[in-house]
């Protein structure tokens, strides 16, 4: 089955990103396809490469990046939600005249249309939120 995943909460404050990650791993292990993972609301904060959690804690952003690299996942951060919360890739930072970017490997910034397209193209769309 082809899935689109929506992650609506940031890392650590809520468990939704952890649950989504575990769902994606399990779905891939069963041979399903992940069409896209779309990060919205505070979920965009899963895509910062500047998080430094304690060493004995899980590293969610890194786990997403590694999973994306291993399975060619399309991790999309909503641009409107990202702009509000200071999540930037290099080109967006340049466009906004900002001195730095913070997006992690494997994530890309794009529009809400990517979520709707995911809903249209996938057999199931699953929301992981509060």
């Amino acid at each position, binding site marked *: 089955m082809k899935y689109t995943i929506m992650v*609506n909460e940031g890392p650590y404050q809520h468990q939704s990103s952890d649950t989504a990650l575990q769902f994606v791993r399990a779905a891939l292990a069963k041979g399903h396809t992940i069409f896209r993972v779309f990060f919205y609301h505070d979920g965009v904060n899963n895509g910062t490469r500047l998080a430094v959690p304690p060493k004995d804690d899980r590293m969610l952003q890194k786990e997403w990046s590694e999973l994306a690299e291993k399975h060619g996942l399309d991790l999309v951060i909503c641009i409107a939600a990202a702009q509000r919360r200071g999540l930037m890739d290099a080109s967006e930072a340049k466009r906004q005249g900002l001195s730095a970017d913070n997006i992690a490997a494997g994530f890309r910034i794009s529009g809400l249309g990517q979520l*709707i397209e995911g809903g249209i193209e996938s057999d199931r769309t699953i929301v992981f939120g509060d």
Partner: protein
Amino acid sequence: MAKKFLYLNRKAPYGTVYALESLEVVLIAAAFEQEVSLAFLDDGVYQIAKGQNPKAAGMKNFSPTYNALGDYGITQLYVERESLVERGLTEEDLMPIVYEDENDEYAEKPSVQVISRAEMSQIMAEQDVTLSF
């Protein structure tokens, strides 16, 4: 073939950003020519309450945007009756959101339909994609 998309609004309009950002998704989604409807339940019913004025709290009143949904071809706004009753609200407390029916000489018709919890579950069951906010 168009899919049926339901946007499920469960949270109050202010206090968290869910309602505002849900509406942003709905407005983008309207461009994709899918069958879009909205549902309001739990504290989400406050999103379309009349007379919102959050100015003193430093928030922007985005509720007028719901009146524009008809122009985006979004004409079905389901409100759960039990959620209204549990909060001491009636349909009279909701904004009179309307749309112009192009199949009926552009007559103004109400977009809001107050339905029971059982009917709401039926509507949810009919959807292809449900996005919950």
